[in-house]
């Protein structure tokens, strides 16, 4: 179809979203998109959800950390932010979400907020609660299994 004249095209804002999860979980693009829309549908309703749009434009996740660019209709950024904050689980796996920033173009969004070098993760044993436990270490963060399930610690805890 012929594209719209400029004044009729929707105006977008692009949200850079940082994603954190346990190191041993995989989060897929489709699952994250589903969680986003599901959360928006629940919080804002169908109408609000349609207004906010919340289409995932890019997504990357590995080793418990990831980032995404989410497209939002201009003027609905606060609603979108609320919906994004309410994503607490993807496929039953808990996730932490942080909106790093907002831009008017995808390019600015990527240049300014994305692709931050994240420390690569390594698997090794660390001392925690009086025992050596296998852990995934990424920078200062350290995900391990304690006596009562998963524990998020830092290298500061284990030294």
């Amino acid at each position: 179809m012929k594209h719209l004249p400029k004044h009729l095209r929707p105006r977008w804002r692009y949200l850079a979203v940082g994603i954190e999860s346990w190191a041993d979980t995989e989060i897929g693009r489709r699952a994250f998109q589903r969680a986003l829309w599901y959360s928006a549908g629940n919080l804002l309703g169908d109408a609000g959800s349609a207004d906010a749009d919340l289409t995932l434009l890019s997504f990357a996740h590995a080793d418990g950390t990831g980032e995404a660019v989410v497209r939002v209709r201009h003027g609905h950024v606060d609603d979108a932010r609320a919906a994004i904050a309410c994503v607490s689980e993807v496929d039953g796996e808990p996730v932490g979400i942080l909106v790093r920033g907002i831009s008017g173009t995808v390019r600015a969004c990527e240049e300014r907020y994305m692709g931050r070098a994240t420390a690569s993760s390594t698997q090794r044993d660390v001392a925690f609660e009086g025992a050596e436990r296998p852990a995934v270490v990424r920078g200062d963060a350290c995900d391990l299994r304690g006596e009562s399930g998963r524990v998020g610690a830092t290298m500061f805890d284990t030294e």
Partner: protein
Amino acid sequence: MYEAVHAHPDGEATVARHAATAARHGYDGIVVRTRDALAAAGNGGGSTAADGDGSPICDPEALREEYGIDVVDAVEIDADDPTSASGAVGNYRSDRTVVCVVGGDDALNRFAVEQARVDVLVRPMASGGDFNHVLAKAARDNGVRVEFDFGPALRATGGKRVRALADLRKLREIVDHYDAPYVVSANARSHLGLRAPRELVAVGEAIGFDAEAVREGLRAWGDLVERNRERRSEGFIEPGVRRGRYEEDG
């Protein structure tokens, strides 16, 4: 702005991980609700980085230095009845900066708001608890802050969330009307449950709160901490009275 968190062993992340995440999210400090997770301030700290047995760091001073945000020792008193809660409040008031009482029961809610020694009544509406004008007036008169728990709004789904939101609205209307002091928290049990202040404000707006009210609720933790630290400092005798040198007035 401050956030109050549940740390390991009560939650799934250590105080250090919470502090690192909260610093990234732009908070000025965290209040650690779990008593076992943090040594009381001024006791010189329990284990430090040097002890080598790998137990989580629980010295607030060391954490503050490492992550650059304030770490506050608090306690959450989860008692079955007002009598045992009263004993616990008496025990912990003198060595913890912030004392919270877990509500969720009519008798406990009533007890908490009528005790000036209690700082915060947390989760007053959880598990069938209720709040009314009598409690709101008592909370205002005794300076007990009532917590708006955003946890269910962020993490629950379906009917549970609907009920939690309805409770939040009821609580908001009562607290608003009587100008009772309040705090806002996401009640994070792990670093993944933390949300940045702007996100909490956005969620608050979406569920009917005033943006400024949510910000105020997050700042209130900080004000509370500052007030209590001042009260526990050595020169403090009572509000307005300090032990110190004579002031030279002209």
